């Protein structure tokens, strides 16, 4: 049986899997960011934004994939998707 992936793809190779997993785990290792720390940040962000807008308090923040900057230097990115319920609270 001819395996299409073994001929053309690198995605299923275990070395690629190892590399991808390592990249992800090292992002977390390097900035020394535990899940507790992320949870504390989440709570603080929620508190700050809630002063101005009604938001869904169920949002997640995560450290995601490496982003290429202009100089080609790589760095981790902190991202949060925060659904806004309504903007009526905004004053001024």
């Amino acid at each position, binding site marked *: 049986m001819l395996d299409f992936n073994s001929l053309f793809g*690198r995605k299923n*190779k*275990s*070395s*690629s899997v*190892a*590399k991808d*997993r*390592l*990249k992800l*785990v*090292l992002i977390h*290792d*390097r900035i020394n960011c535990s899940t507790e720390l992320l949870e504390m940040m989440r709570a603080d962000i929620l508190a700050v934004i809630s002063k101005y807008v009604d938001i869904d308090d169920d949002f997640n923040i995560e450290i995601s994939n490496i982003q290429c900057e202009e100089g080609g230097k790589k760095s981790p990115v902190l991202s949060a998707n925060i659904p806004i319920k309504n903007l009526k609270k905004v004053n001024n």
Partner: protein
Amino acid sequence: MSQVIVITSGKGGVGKTTTSANVGTALTLLGRQVVLVDADIGLRNLDVVMGLENRIVYDLVDVVEGRCRLKQALIKDKRFEGLFLLPAAQTRDKNAVSPEQMKKLCDTLREEFDYVILDCPAGIEQGFKNAIAGADRALVVTTPEVSAVRDADRIIGLLESNGISNTQLIINRVRMNMVKRGDMMAMDDVVEILAIDLIGVVPDDENIVVSTNRGEPAAIEANTLAGKAFRNIADRVEGKEIPFLDLTTGNNFVGKLKKVFGFGN
């Protein structure tokens, strides 16, 4: 100008002691005065790998605690001109020595030798802190496995925060046939992930097991792949530019093309 080099890895069993023995031996073969220091107190092994286990009288802790003079504890390797071993204590633990004492020891050895090679214990605790205390530069040993690479990354960070920025990478136990079929990370992958300079790639060579069995460093044999790889590392430690052994090319179409047309490394 003499150098104190620590061989470290974080993870155990990746080949720190083998690397220390072989890089040290290869440097001696280049005509340098070298002392190998076994900093793994309590788990001494560099002596058996070097085949010098029967000649130990005093050890590193005896020197530090003043029970003997440094010269009495140094074992001269009769096979190689200018190679010495300072063995670790076997019946003490890592806390028997402090980083300050190790730094002082390294500075004393520095006056007598061109290279002081420190075989660091696994882990990041006291033994690691002792071993790196007096070092100018570090060779970080890893294998192309996720656990070893992750630990290497941690060690590189710790070395940097302890003021050792002159750090190079040795990738050990590369299995060419596995790299070729995509089941082992290639040297480029590991270098990309760790983002430090590579100083050597050592193949997974049965000769290492044989030479360790006999207590004869593989670097003696220039005609084995591993022996050649360690000799090349010694040359690069000296600052020479030596091309890497052809171990990992041919993994993809471009690599094969390069190889066919003679551009491979």
